[in-house]
């Protein structure tokens, strides 16, 4: 039993890394554009399909395929901002939410039309490492390391470059930023492009782990949201930490009970934390 729980904890930490990866782009868009990007999971799904397509029909290397899918998703993010989100910037939050929920319908069914409902995966055999009774899947480990590298890279981008500073300034105070001569429209576009690229990165790390199908995105979206809000909207470190909390909690309770109960425990923890700290674990409470 202890062995089971120990290996569940290890798996939970690795799952946390995967979830953390998923959360970065969402967190960025949340913090800057201040919209709830419901269709983010569908972006990842599209990215995985693009990689799959490039690798099977055009026989590309996984690295090149991932790069191309990042570029395509970045462009898709810009398109999304221009066509759907810009007209809705001033409208109520609920309307934005529902427009993005409409996008879920569009993306999922488009994938269904283009690629059918089958589960698609690439043949990529990564070994399973084991230390005594602990088994570690290398694909999870790669995603875990990828999450840390992405976090560091994102930190560099947001803290050291001019564009990154503009993005952070827009997230903190829109009005003052405009006074400083930064056009928020451009910042939003760049943010969406970055978010799209991040979802492409997620897709490339997910490709060895999961098989993709049209409803792949919706399985992750709610969990990803919960992690973002738990950590504090727009707070990367908070998102990173809460991804591990959720990962460990779900995998341990899935061993002890069932996966449904595990997921509902994670959701109930989320609800309880929301009641006590609505700004999230590391968030700063906004004054109204």
């Amino acid at each position: 039993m202890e062995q089971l729980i120990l290996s569940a904890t290890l798996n939970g930490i690795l799952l946390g890394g995967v979830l953390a990866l998923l959360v970065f782009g969402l967190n960025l868009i949340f913090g800057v554009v201040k919209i709830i990007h419901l269709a983010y999971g569908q972006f990842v799904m599209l990215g995985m399909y693009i990689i799959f397509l490039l690798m099977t029909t055009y026989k590309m290397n996984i690295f090149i395929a991932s790069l191309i899918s990042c570029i395509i998703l970045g462009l898709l993010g810009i398109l999304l901002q221009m066509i759907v989100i810009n007209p809705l910037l001033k409208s109520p939050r609920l309307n934005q939410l529902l427009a993005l929920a409409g996008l879920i319908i569009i993306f999922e069914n488009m994938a269904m039309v283009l690629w059918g409902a089958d589960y698609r995966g690439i043949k990529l055999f990564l070994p399973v490492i084991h230390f005594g009774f602990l088994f570690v899947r290398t694909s999870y480990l790669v995603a875990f390391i990828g999450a840390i590298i992405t976090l560091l890279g994102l930190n560099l981008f947001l803290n050291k470059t001019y564009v990154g500073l503009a993005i952070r300034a827009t997230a903190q105070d829109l009005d003052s930023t405009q006074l400083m001569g930064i056009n928020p429209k451009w910042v939003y576009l760049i943010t969406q492009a970055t978010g799209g690229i991040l979802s492409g990165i997620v897709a490339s790390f997910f490709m060895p782990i999961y098989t993709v199908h049209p409803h792949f995105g919706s399985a992750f979206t709610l969990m990803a949201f919960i992690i973002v809000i738990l950590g504090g909207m727009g707070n990367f470190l908070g998102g990173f930490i809460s991804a591990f909390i959720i990962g460990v909690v779900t995998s341990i309770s899935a061993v002890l009970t069932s996966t449904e109960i595990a997921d509902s425990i994670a959701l109930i923890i989320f609800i309880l934390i929301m009641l006590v700290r609505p700004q999230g674990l590391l968030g700063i409470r906004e004054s109204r």
Partner: protein
Amino acid sequence: MNATSFLKRKFPLVILLLGILILPLLSPPPYLIHIITFIFIWSYITTVWSYMGRFHLVSLGHGAFLGIGAYISILLFNYYNISPWIGMLLGGMGAALLALILGYACFRFGVIGDYFALVTLALGEVVALIINAFRDVTGGSLGMTLKSVGTSFYYFQFEKKIYYYYVSLLFLMFALFLWQIIDRSRIQKALHAIGEDEIAAASIGIRIIRYKLFITLISAFLTATGGVLYTQYMTYVNPETLSGVGVSLAIPFKAILGGMFHLWGSTIGTAMIVSLEEYIRIMYGARFIGISQVFYGILLVVLIIFLPKGLYGTISDYWQKRKRISEEQPKMKLGFFGK
């Protein structure tokens, strides 16, 4: 107000109601009756949702109440043979209890706006997961079929669709009537003030928690009864169609596209969405699998972008604006030339 002036004022409404009442007597195709009944049931649920929604209490978790009502009733009936009418009451009470716990916690700790929406979204998913987890009893995601007893009013089961048509119409009319009652009461004024600015409302002595809980409990209770109504009509329940994120988002979708701040908004929104869905499914569903849904999604996004107040909301605001302008016109002329 005497009878004739009432008739004159509400003329289109009376005609519409008479038309709806007479329609089944003209022996229309059963499919039409089915769609209209479906619209009635979902309009009822959506109207009940907008009791809360119109005061900026946006709940994205009404699927939780729907699921609880439906499952309590069907489990009691299938296993213990308890009449769904009692099940409806108990299911409503179960949903209201959940709403009381969560609502009190949320309102006590000041969880408002987006955070309230997200907490309720999680709630809807929790209920769906729990229904799935107890699959030995509830059937899990395979769903559960209602035991058939033929036509029996006591067990709220009818073999003909017509009965459901009238019953769900009654439910919908009750919901609209209750909306009117709330609209004319002090509760509406208090909740309106709370929705505009909570702190200001509290400072003039409005009991925020009490009013918000009141409307949440009513909404939860009635939503659960809507779940039972749906169960009895479809004779099949499934956690995907009754709770979880999908349906929890579909309800506000209908309300917004109709115009959730207006009495008829939810009904019109539901009628629009359901008939659109059915039309696209029937006309293009078989020929282009999937593409029809893509069109539907695009249409929804376009509608949200261009009609942010909803169909009925936009039209009714436009009318009121025109009316105001035509009333102001003579005065303006007086102002310019009268003196």
